[in-house]
């Protein structure tokens, strides 16, 4: 099985709902922890960090492993901003599923009829089905190249 498949299997076992909100929370925690860590370090230590790592083979291996892990994680989960983009949403739920009775009903419960409109509009945007405006002339050009 491909590594991506293995990771998907592993994530499914965690039993938590993947959502934009969850991503945001995880990332904010990670960044906060990182920020605290950075503050504790002295300027001198920061300047010499790569020197210290390169001197110790164990540290070097650990650093390389950490970089690979972070890189792998970013490739498969994307940066924070992307977690809220429609492309990622499309992977979670298809535009068609956004137009099902239950999905629209859930939207109503959250934001009333405006949320139903918004969700339908987004689904159609993603489907890109209905042109805003099209003339007979344009259609003729599209169909016959006239």
């Amino acid at each position, binding site marked *: 099985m491909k590594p991506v498949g293995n990771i998907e299997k592993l994530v499914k076992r965690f039993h938590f709902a993947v959502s934009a*909100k969850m991503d945001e929370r995880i990332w904010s925690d990670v960044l906060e922890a990182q920020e605290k860590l950075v503050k504790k370090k002295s300027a001198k230590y920061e300047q010499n960090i790569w020197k210290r790592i390169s001197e110790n083979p164990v540290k070097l291996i650990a650093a390389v492993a950490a970089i690979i892990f972070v890189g792998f994680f970013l490739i498969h989960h994307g940066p924070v901003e992307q977690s809220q983009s429609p492309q990622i949403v499309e992977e979670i739920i298809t535009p068609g599923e956004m137009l099902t009775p239950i999905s629209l009903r859930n939207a109503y419960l959250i934001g009333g009829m405006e949320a139903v*409109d*918004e969700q339908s509009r987004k689904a159609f945007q993603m489907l890109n089905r209905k042109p805003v405006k099209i003339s007979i002339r344009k259609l003729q050009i599209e169909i016959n190249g006239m």
Partner: protein
Amino acid sequence: MRVKIDKRLIAVIFVFLTIPHKLLLAQPPQNAALLYYQAFMVYESPNEEMRKKLYDLVRHQIEPDRQITRYVTKQQSVIDLLTIAADLPNCDWGFDYSTGVAFYVAHLQSFRELSRIVIADAKILAEQNDYKTALKRCLTLHKMSHHIGDDLLITLLVASSSVDLANECIKYILSEMPSDVTTLHWLKAELSRIDSKPFALKNSLGNEYKLVVADMTPDRIDKMISLCLEPVITVLGASPDKLPTKRQVDKKRIEEKQNWEQIVRERVRKADEDFLERNRIHLKKYFIDKFPLTLELPYDQAYTKLIELDQEIKNDSYKDPDATITAVVKPPLAIVLSKTVRTNAFINAVRAAIEIYVINAKTGSLPDELPDSLPGDLFSSQPFKYEKTTEGFILRCRGKDPVKKKIHKYVFKVSK
């Protein structure tokens, strides 16, 4: 030469000549949905700016401008198509309930947009003092709403909202138009004909049950559960602060929901035919027996009982695996019931107001008391509270709307 005339040919010619002329003319199809689907395909979808303008116009926040008038004028042939469709008695949208909950109701988006276009046209006509045609547009939307119907809870909610839109516009036109007894009598008769069958939840509930049962098979249950539990915030792809949220959700509730969803997913992952059968029995107990019986009660009792049933199912689902599916798919009946009662109360308020306008048109002044036997407030099952104002009159509900947490009032003006 002798011509032999076939008796059968004579019979055919005789029948043809005696058929009423009307029957030989082209007739619209018997199913209104076919015309609606055509309208949905050919109307010009508004761009972002126009969409916003239409929103504001139907909420009476702006007046029709040249740009709106131009856009709506271009949709006249579609409005004509909708008018013909709305007048047809039958409307079958062709839903296939056997496909389960994952079937599409994509037509609702177009229906909502066209509802706003119809009301925008009504407002333009009212501005041109063509009040009767403007009212006809509102009635078209009333009829369309009955067609979009009570097949499902979401269609019922959309229908309810569209009727509210039409009623708001009727209220506006009645406040603007000069006294005209003939038009008022005509409007009263039309409204009582169209709204003779009020919106009801029972039909939707039965169909929602069919959809869920169709999905209660080992190969489909997982998909249905995922769809039902999918958070809307994720669906909309927006952060919560950007979402038009009417209900604030606290952190504790989110955690509680996540824990509960974990239990549900675990049970569904292991679901076998035995588990599904026991869940089907539980589902039937509520959808076919308890919910419909509760809906027979007067509104305030029904609302309280539905909230209790909702909590009862939720609590059961923690300890009883048989209640799992019912807990996931249970519809927000108390909220939908309140919405339909709100809409039906508004219909009653408009009908009661027409009677008051008729008295005003006949006598030249508003009555001091509310006449007897007018349609009443459905939140309290009592007559509306009537109050004369300097500009017209107000009809107030006596019962509180527990969802909106307010007492509704309907303000009508009288044109001088």
